[in-house]
């Protein structure tokens, strides 16, 4: 990965003033120094793919029940082509993404570059059918639709 050296360096430079606390007054928005937690970097990150998630752990091995729930919901809908970032690998990213979305918890889900919510919201969107619609807007056909059709034709 070409960016990892730069990211490590940035993390070193910023060591000691990131992470801890998390309380941030107006105007001290996660800096613009270009580290993995900077809003510019995150902005590019969430817009790079149609579906982007920030997890504790990986889709293969989620490290937390809520992250796992997000992975399972996407799997149910047959969404395979999504970008997942493990915040446990990167403290700057972990705090940065919370500041970016002004949302206090991980996991976080982004559709078409827009923050959608965390686990609770994705779950409710799954339950009330909104997720199928939102995916459709992105040109992704939910696998649940096909399953339903199979059942109907039986």
């Amino acid at each position, binding site marked *: 990965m070409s960016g990892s050296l730069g990211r490590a360096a940035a993390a070193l430079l910023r060591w000691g003033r990131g992470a801890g606390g998390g309380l941030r007054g107006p105007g001290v928005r996660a800096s613009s120094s270009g580290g993995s937690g900077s809003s510019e970097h995150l902005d590019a990150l969430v817009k790079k793919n149609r579906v982007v998630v920030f997890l504790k752990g990986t889709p293969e091995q989620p490290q937390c029940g809520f992250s796992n729930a997000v992975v399972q919901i996407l799997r149910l809908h047959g969404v395979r082509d999504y970008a997942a970032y493990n915040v446990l690998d990167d403290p700057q990213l972990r705090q940065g993404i919370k500041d970016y979305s*002004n*949302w206090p918890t991980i996991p976080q889900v982004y559709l078409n570059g827009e923050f959608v*919510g*965390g686990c*609770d919201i994705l779950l409710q969107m799954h339950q009330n059918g909104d997720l199928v619609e939102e995916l459709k807007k992105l040109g992704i056909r939910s696998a649940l639709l096909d399953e339903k059709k199979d059942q109907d034709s039986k």
Partner: protein
Amino acid sequence: MELSAEYLREKLQRDLEAEHVEVEDTTPNRCASSFRVLVVSAKFEGKPLLQRHRLVNTCLAEELLHIHAFEQKTLTPEQWTREQQK
């Protein structure tokens, strides 16, 4: 900071003018670091889920710094009535 289900319940009820609040400490050993809340408030009317959750997050911004896991359900009084009839 002393966090308790009762403290969170009172704060949500007061700040969000909620007509009904349930707070459950979901920490396995009840050490008050993870919670599940249900908030029923007229303030949620006409607001999408994300905005509702943001209201709750804002209300508990300080407390959430010390909470490890937080689940929330946000209903309008009308939705709550329907939910109870199920």
